[in-house]
């Protein structure tokens, strides 16, 4: 994982498949965010394109935003676990590590520390991306302990409020009373307060959102990655509906996300004073560069 891994041996370039040649020539590696990034999606070779997710999957859309927002894709590793999301995440052109049933944040702790020892002079971004089941149910202890230990990496929870990949069981993040295929009598307790847990556990930057605005979503992702480099753990809790298990017609997926934005996924952002100072520095520098 470095820029050199995305430069083919010159004599072999004509033997590479088209996808890779395009990634080399038109991909985001080594380029400035203002030339690629979410604002320019569709005009460059993106890190994840084809995926096996369901038609209308809001999670797949958000995963595309995550990859388009990476500050340094050539120096990034993603870690996921069982669930729908990893089907798309694992086929992005960024190294992916599969954490076995919820241990993604434990793995990320070790990998982040190893990177800091191996590359003390460079930022290697580690991002765990998992669903609500992987993050808040099965992987709950490892997620929480990584935050308690102040491990410096970014955690992104793709919250579809159900175990979508296994047929519709309730998760800790499902709403109270939610009737799903495999919880026919309705969920008996409420949604876990993930954002509050993250703040209490010591995350320096926490966002809850329904990613309907790609610029806003991208800004949150980049802030989370920048803060995780030096300050401490960061967490993004994003609503990524499961249109299959919640029977949302494909055409209404965006409308559903907009409604969530007005309700329980209204945009909330928490940051420590140190994080606020860091973002002010980074963003003012970017503005100066643009102007």
């Amino acid at each position: 994982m470095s820029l050199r891994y995305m430069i083919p041996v010159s004599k072999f370039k004509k033997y590479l498949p088209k996808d890779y040649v395009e990634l080399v020539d038109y991909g985001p590696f080594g380029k400035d965010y203002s030339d690629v990034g979410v604002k320019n999606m569709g005009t460059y070779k993106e890190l994840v394109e084809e995926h096996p997710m369901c038609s209308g999957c809001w999670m797949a859309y958000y995963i595309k935003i995550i990859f388009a927002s990476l500050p340094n894709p050539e120096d990034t590793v993603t870690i996921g676990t069982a669930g729908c999301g990893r089907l798309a995440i694992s086929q992005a052109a960024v190294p992916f590590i599969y954490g076995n049933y919820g241990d993604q944040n434990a793995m990320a702790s070790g990998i982040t520390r190893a990177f800091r020892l191996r590359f003390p002079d460079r930022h290697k971004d580690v991002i765990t991306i998992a669903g609500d089941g992987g993050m808040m149910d099965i992987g709950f202890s490892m997620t929480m302990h990584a935050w308690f230990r102040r491990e410096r990496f970014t955690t992104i929870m793709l919250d579809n409020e159900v175990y979508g990949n296994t047929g519709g069981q309730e998760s800790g993040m499902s709403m109270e009373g939610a009737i799903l295929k495999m919880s026919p009598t309705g969920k008996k307790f409420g949604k876990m307060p993930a954002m509050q847990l993250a703040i209490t556990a010591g995350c320096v930057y926490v966002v809850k959102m329904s990613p309907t605005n790609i610029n806003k979503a991208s800004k949150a992702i980049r802030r989370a990655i920048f803060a995780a480099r030096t300050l401490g753990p960061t967490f993004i809790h994003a609503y990524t509906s499961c249109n299959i298990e919640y029977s949302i017609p494909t055409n209404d997926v965006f409308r559903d996300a907009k409604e969530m934005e007005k309700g329980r996924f209204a945009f909330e952002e928490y940051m420590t004073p140190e994080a606020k100072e860091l973002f002010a520095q980074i963003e003012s520098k970017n503005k100066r560069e643009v102007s």
Partner: protein
Amino acid sequence: MSKKITVGPVGYMPQSAPSMGVELSPKGQALLYGNIVTEEEAMRDAAKALLTMANPTIFPGPQVLWDWKDDVAEKSAAILDLAAEIPNCRIIPMPDYRPKYPKIDAEAEINPNHPNLTILHNKIKAAIFIGVHCHYANLSLRMIRAGTDCYTIAMCAFMGHEEAMASIRDVHAEDVLRFKDILVQVRNELGIEWTAKMPPENPSLPKEDWGTLTPADYGEYRSLLMSKKGEHIADVE
């Protein structure tokens, strides 16, 4: 010589080579059908397979495709020199190991998670694995032995692979060139006439010059074209 590891297909869930008593060869030696032999003997058998079996192919892996280390270019050049000497050889790369769904282009690449697709689609009967990280080479080689009738040759920079029919260890640029010399020698012994020629480039690469395309070339799909940042397309059909 009794053959412990043979050309497949040996069937679904094959017994692994190590469990059949195959051990990696010591330094300076090689494995042929699971037996420890001299490097030259393994190279000669591998060369014979590449020269006599249908659709010989080299599968270069990420370690030789990407310019990630200073000595990669030298080894890659040696691989291409070798490819040029194998009659009708093809190069099908394994650029990385990520899963590819809904499907891969079996003519353009090989994926370690289902290497049999590429081998069966292209009717490859002899293949070289080189520059593939060992854990994925092991995975692929066993899958190929399980489901195809392809003779596999592992040219490994480390300790070799038990699952391949011929496994040569500690392979660097000079060893690839030595294999090329042996292959030319075997080719002459077999009376095969061939002038060194580079394999064809990847079939997925566009043949036309994209620079000369206009929106009209996209026919009914032209409305899907997106202009580049700051670009204003005025001339459309």
